[in-house]
């Protein structure tokens, strides 16, 4: 019973301990208690916190790069879905789809696509597979859903990370201010002694 109530108190003041490999920043209730508990002097505490901040920044850059990649991938998949939908729409009508496509930069040629039964999808790693229009639609839709889901998770990771960065920055400021305060109090105590 005692242990469960103490963990209940702990979770009220601490954030989640970590998320997908990112360590959570410990919220400091009182600077003096924190320094005594961790056994660190002010400078060691500050350099530990600064190091943590650097690590967070590194992870943030990695996540931002992944986010940019996903954000570029999603419109590409949507464009492919658009093309497949257009081909499927044209299939019933018996009319060919005439399109101008880029042969090389600045040079275009005309293509005549009649009754597209299948499309080829680029799967990456120099692999291209032929699919029926329906199968291609399903595959592209699945890829789109996966990309959007991954992006959501990534965005949540970034929010968590930024919170930890803010907590760490505030803790650094508080530890520093506490130190300044302490030093001033000691100076005032020394001058008071001298005067008395």
């Amino acid at each position, binding site marked *: 019973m005692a242990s469960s109530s103490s963990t209940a108190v702990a979770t009220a003041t601490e954030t989640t301990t970590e998320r997908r490999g990112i360590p959570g920043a410990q919220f400091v209730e009182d600077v003096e208690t924190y320094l005594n508990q961790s056994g660190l002097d002010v400078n060691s505490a500050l350099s530990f916190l600064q190091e943590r901040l650097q690590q967070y920044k590194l992870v943030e850059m990695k996540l931002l790069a992944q986010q940019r990649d996903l954000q570029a991938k999603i419109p590409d998949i949507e*464009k492919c879905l*658009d*093309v497949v939908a*257009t081909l499927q729409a044209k299939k019933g009508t018996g009319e060919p*789809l005439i*399109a101008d496509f880029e042969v090389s930069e600045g040079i275009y040629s005309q293509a005549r696509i009649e009754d597209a039964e299948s499309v080829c999808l680029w799967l990456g790693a120099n692999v291209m597979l032929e699919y029926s229009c329906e199968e291609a639609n399903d595959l592209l839709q699945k890829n789109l859903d996966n990309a959007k889901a991954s992006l959501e998770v990534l965005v949540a990771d970034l929010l968590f990370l930024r919170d930890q960065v803010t*907590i760490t920055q505030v803790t650094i400021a508080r530890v520093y201010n506490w130190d300044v305060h302490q030093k001033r109090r000691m100076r005032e105590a020394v001058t008071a002694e001298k005067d008395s």
Partner: protein
Amino acid sequence: MQQGGGSDKEVTWEDQQNINNFGRLNNRLHELEDEIKIAKETNDNLEDASNELILTDEEVVRFQIGEVFAHVPRDEVETRIEQMKEVTSKNMEKLDEEKEFVVAQMAKLKKILYGKFGDSINLEEN
């Protein structure tokens, strides 16, 4: 007597959460401003395309689908562009609404945080 660097104000978990939320909102605000800029550009491009379409007297228009330019009859292009404009303007409305909400939330948090910490905290854009 307290000077700026030696503030005595204790930071509670609630304060920390307010600061965290302010940070999140500020980031979201910048993202929204970028998204609104892009949406506005897309809108302008669609307007220009619409206008060009009215001016042209060709029956078949080269309309970009994916990476190619498909030959599409003019009426269909008109319909497609109208649809795209609908989507973009709905999107912009949503973005503007969210931006208003975010700005209002930030103003509330500023009041609370400046109220407690005064000069010890800076919530302004650099």
